[in-house]
């Protein structure tokens, strides 16, 4: 009798446990279904970032902006992303103005003029902050950018270091539309610095090459032209934007010119960092993307809260060379080969290297002969 009660009790207990487990599972599975607008956090502000450049640098800037926004109870969107059509900065600006966010962070390519749209945004009480390329005549509330003078200084010093007293040709890749003041200032300062710092009797010849950075695929073509034109390649090539850096790097490998010329790049993407480590790229000027993103959000927050904000923020820059790349990684916590994109790029690069080695060997032999 007692035994049968025990068995029955045990059975009931097991049934209750089973049913409870199923219930919890069921509740959990229902909660996995995303239902609109239930229990979502409501942010204090909603910002929009506009950039038709989707390079790693901008992804990093957006990521930093998102991080900063989350910390200050704000949401930030990258306007134009995920739409069926691809829009330029102007269209995105129109969209943003119509969508009426609490603030806009705008990147316009050099040469673009969105003054009118900034004006309209300002009329609709939307504060606009420009990044990297300013629109000084507009009613943007602040500009976050690089100091061209400082950049010119750093590039000039790097040219001197790379040439190390030897004579050499230096090719600077400027944006075709980039007769703008910032690039001009940069270039002038670079020349001045090189002139001042060169060794007695050393001859450094600077020349520029215009590449079309405004449209998507022209830069790559323009850069390849340098290599295939058959003209003499310079000793040093300077890139002033991330895309041209990537293009020059891959062209160097593809046309078997590794070691023949030094490249001073721009921006420390993962692939560029690896290239610096391998000596493919001599050095690269890094703009602190994280700082740009953060500053954008912070400036907007400040403006929304107090009604005014400093009209200019300077972003830190530094030259990354083979010597300090390791410490740079440590400082910013960038691990080698993290991220899917970087991984893919690495594979691509590896493939290229393999191809090159096959090509390189006869060439080296020929060289020796």
């Amino acid at each position: 009798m007692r035994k049968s009660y025990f068995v029955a009790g045990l059975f009931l207990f097991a049934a209750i446990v089973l049913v409870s487990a199923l219930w919890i599972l069921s509740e959990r599975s229902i909660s996995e279904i995303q239902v609109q607008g239930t229990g979502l956090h409501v942010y204090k502000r909603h910002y929009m970032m506009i950039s038709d450049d989707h390079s790693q640098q901008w992804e990093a800037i957006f990521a930093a902006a998102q991080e900063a926004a989350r910390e200050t109870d704000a949401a930030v969107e990258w306007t134009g992303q995920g739409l069926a059509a691809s829009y330029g900065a102007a269209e995105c600006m129109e969209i943003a103005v119509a969508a009426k966010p609490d603030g806009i962070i705008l990147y316009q390519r050099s040469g673009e003029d969105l003054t009118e749209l900034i004006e309209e945004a300002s009329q609709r009480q939307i504060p606009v902050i420009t990044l990297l390329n300013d629109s000084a005549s507009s009613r943007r509330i602040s500009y976050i950018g690089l100091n061209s003078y400082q950049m010119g200084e750093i590039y000039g010093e790097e040219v001197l270091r790379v040439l190390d007293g030897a004579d050499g040709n230096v090719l600077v890749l400027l944006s075709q539309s980039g007769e703008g003041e910032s690039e001009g200032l940069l270039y002038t300062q670079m020349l001045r610095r090189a002139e001042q710092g060169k060794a007695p009797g050393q001859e450094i010849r600077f020349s520029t090459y215009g590449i079309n950075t405004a449209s998507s695929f022209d830069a790559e073509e323009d850069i390849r032209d340098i290599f295939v034109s058959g003209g003499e390649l310079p000793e040093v090539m300077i890139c002033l934007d991330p895309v041209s850096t990537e293009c020059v790097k891959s062209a160097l490998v593809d046309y078997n010119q590794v070691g023949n010329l030094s490249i001073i790049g721009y921006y420390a993407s993962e692939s560029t960092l690896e290239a610096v480590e391998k000596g493919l790229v001599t050095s690269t000027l890094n703009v602190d993307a994280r700082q740009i993103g953060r500053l954008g959000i912070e400036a907007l927050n400040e403006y929304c809260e107090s009604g005014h904000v400093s009209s200019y923020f300077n972003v830190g820059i530094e030259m990354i060379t083979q010597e300090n790349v390791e410490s740079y990684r440590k400082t910013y916590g960038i691990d080698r080969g993290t991220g899917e994109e970087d991984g893919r790029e690495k594979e691509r690069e590896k493939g290229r290297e393999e191809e090159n080695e096959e090509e390189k060997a006869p060439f080296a032999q020929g060289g020796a002969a």
Partner: protein
Amino acid sequence: MRETAKVGKGDSIQTAKVGKGDSIQTRLIGMVAVTLAVTLLVNLFIYRQISSMVRTIDSVFASNVTISELTEELGLLQGHVYEYLNTKSSEALEEYYRSVQEYHALIEQLNGKRMDSEIKLLEKNIRNMSERYLEIADATVQAKRGRNVERYKELYTRQEDLFHYINMHIEKLNSLQFDRNSRNYQFLLSAMRILELLSLGVIVALYFFCLIFIAVVIRTMIHPLTILSAAATRVADGDFLVNIPAAATGDEIGVVTNTFRQMLESIRAYIERLRTSMESQARMKQNELAMEANLKEAQLKFLQAQINPHFLFNSLNAGAQLAMMEEADGTGEFLEKMADFFRYTIKNTDGSSTLEEEIASVDNYIYILNVRFAGDILYRKQISGEPRNWRMPGMILQPIVENAVTHGIRDMIDRGIITLSVEVEEDQVRVTVSDNGEGMTREQIALVSSGDYHSEQVNGSTGIGLANVRNRLMLYYDQEDLLSIHSDGKGLGTEVTVVLPRVGPAGDAGQEEKSAVPEPDAGQRESAVPEPDAGQE
């Protein structure tokens, strides 16, 4: 027995008193109620799960409906603006205003808050863009009405751009939602499967729960009944000693069990009483028979001794009358006492007499002896209390006195003294016959007390021995040790004490006559029976 149920002919049988909460009916209803309640709860639980699932599905797919309406209405609105700009017809304008209203109502449903969700932020953007679009559309229409051609053309271009952007965004929203919904569909599917399992599990668990619960309840209810039926079978087979444990429950079965136990106890007690009473009856019967036998024996012995006492008694009376006529008073008195003595012995055939008569009989006997033996015996009588109506068996004292004379003082050189002492106490009468004769040894007393001693018949005695007296006392009073013998030793006399207890109502019956007879002086008195010739000492 204490409370045996007595149901008379006309009595109706009342419902057994059962605690309200304990009755089988309540328990059965309770059991069914609990089972039903659990079933209901389980159903409610499943219903809740299903309805929550339906709500979830509803909220997931309801959003898509709004989106398609939004696109459709926006297209219509744009079309109406175009038509109005094209034709400037009032119908188009009317349509436009209606469209604006409807579209406005639609975008009102979109989120306007800065929510932490891509879809929600997108909705906010679409809503704001749509509002801007409506502003521009309104301005376009106003410009058209004001015939400001350049302005309305410019505005229309902007409106078109915005229309395009909004559509793009709605498309994105749609695709995001589609994406989410396809993801949700997988979750829904698995959730449905789990829900199915859950429902099945709950129902199976419920089934077993109810089964076990009902089994336990019924088993608890039926168990005492099983015990009771087993006990009843044994009782039916005649085993009244079966032991039934007391019922723990207070329901009808418990009542029946307890009542059955009581009934069994009553039957056992009744059987016991019956047995005792039968035993006592048998003993009484036996006593009666033995007493009768003893009496018969006494009478027989007496009759053997006194051949034709009637004749003797009549002759003695005739002698007494003759003595009177001849004026021989002493002889007359002697004969009269003789006649009295024998009359008593003859009359006393039913075995029952009074103490007074017994004493008188002893008096007569001593008188006769003194006449016979020329006044050798000094007879002392001490009576305290009123012995007159004290009922007792007849022929008790005379044999004792005779015994004292025969064995005590007959062969004495000195004068023999017989003392009869009667003490009437509340519940008993103590009669002591003592003599100053040769006394008895301890062994002799023990022998006589055991009843095994039978003295040889002495000529001239009534022949009724002490053993006979003892037996009759025992049978009459149903009590032993009423007769005791005491002697300090040889030559120091013997004292025989008879205790006569009051015999219940029979004794009292005699007392009733008490008032009719004048009460003599209470107190001790000593009298000597007149002796014919021997003078008083």
